């Protein structure tokens, strides 16, 4: 199989799947080596960006998904007649952040950190596809735990959870050092 055909197969699979496709499944179905996959995707993405194409391939965790390019959002929105969506509320952002940095976590955990009932806000995030239930939390009673989704990664321009911005502890450190200075005086 020619290089172009390998890429073509990958492209066709990602296009038709719509949803994110696991690396191994993509490699297997397109009949390419899993190790070659990143380079092939890179070539494809390069081609897209050279052409200012309307689409691109995003890496989301161990999956790939074909998406529209951000710069064309306005045209797509017009075509889909979708109204401007309301941004996430402060409460939703906080709950999402708690889950993102500590997943999998229960509603109780989120409530604990935020100091306020977070049940409805988590339900909203599940509805929006940013959070999903996770059955991995292996503690007695098996409470429902939540984790972020591929949609979450895509929505925040992340290709994996490792890319989450680090939690800022600077201020705290600075405060602490100020405190220590004071003590020394």
């Amino acid at each position: 199989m020619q290089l172009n055909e390998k890429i073509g197969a990958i492209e066709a699979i990602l296009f038709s799947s719509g949803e994110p496709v696991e690396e191994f499944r993509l490699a297997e179905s397109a009949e390419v080596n899993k190790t070659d996959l990143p380079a092939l995707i890179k070539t494809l993405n390069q081609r897209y960006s050279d052409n200012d194409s309307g689409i691109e391939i995003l890496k989301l965790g161990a999956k790939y998904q074909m998406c529209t390019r951000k710069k064309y959002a306005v045209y797509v929105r017009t075509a889909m007649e979708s109204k401007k969506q309301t941004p996430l509320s402060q409460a939703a952002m906080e709950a999402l952040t708690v889950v993102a940095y500590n997943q999998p976590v229960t509603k109780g955990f989120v409530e604990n950190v935020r100091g306020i009932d977070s049940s409805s806000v988590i339900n909203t995030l599940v509805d929006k596809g940013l959070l999903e239930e996770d059955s991995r939390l292996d503690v007695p009673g098996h409470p429902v735990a939540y984790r972020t989704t591929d949609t979450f990664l895509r929505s925040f321009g992340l290709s994996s959870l490792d890319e989450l911005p680090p939690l800022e502890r600077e201020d705290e450190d600075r405060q602490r050092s100020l405190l220590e200075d004071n003590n020394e005086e």
Partner: protein
Amino acid sequence: METISFKLDVFEGPLDLLLHLISKHKLNINDIEISKLLEQYLLYIEQAKEQDLELAGEFLEMAARLIYIKTVSLLPKPQEAEDIKKELQGALIEYSLCKKAAEKLKGQFCGHDIFVREPLKIKLDSEYKLKHPPEKLVEAFFRMNVKKADLMKKADEQKINAVVQQKVVSVISKVVFVLKNLYRHGKSRIDSLFDGMTGRSERVATFLAILELTKSGRIMISDDNTEIFFKRVNKNAAE
């Protein structure tokens, strides 16, 4: 007194309000002056009450917590006071980290600008093709935490459960049941008719069926109320 113009609902919760107060009054989050914080906090709560704002329970709970911390700090148990204060400080620090991270993440949000498409709908062979060792089944069984004996018992009960769970048992069906039983055995012990019946509806229906059949004169109940038999069978027996 300083007038506070505010709306409590701009705060995401009591921790948010506390962080606001801490920064406003330049308190040290790592060593909070509890009395000052409490005073300011209560001011807000009072104000909210005056404005008839509906206060989330969490706000009142926090007030109680602050008062408790202050109280304990007045008692001659400095360690405990220090501990519960540290706990609150820890929660505040954690929450402030969360707020900052949320702010940062929010700036990255591009979810409304990236579009995806629905998967192509093609007809597929959905037959399962993966292979598993049979031991996977045993594993799954033990994960359910069901005792084997219970499972077997449940299996025995199934025939009844299947009926009971789906509908209320009709008296007519039990009239047929009782009659069939009598045709087969000539007479039946009443209690044996209830053998294996666990559903209330079924037991009630059976009992009513017996009463109904007696009333209509189809069957008779023995003098000691333990057996039923057909009227004609009784005649035959008497002859």
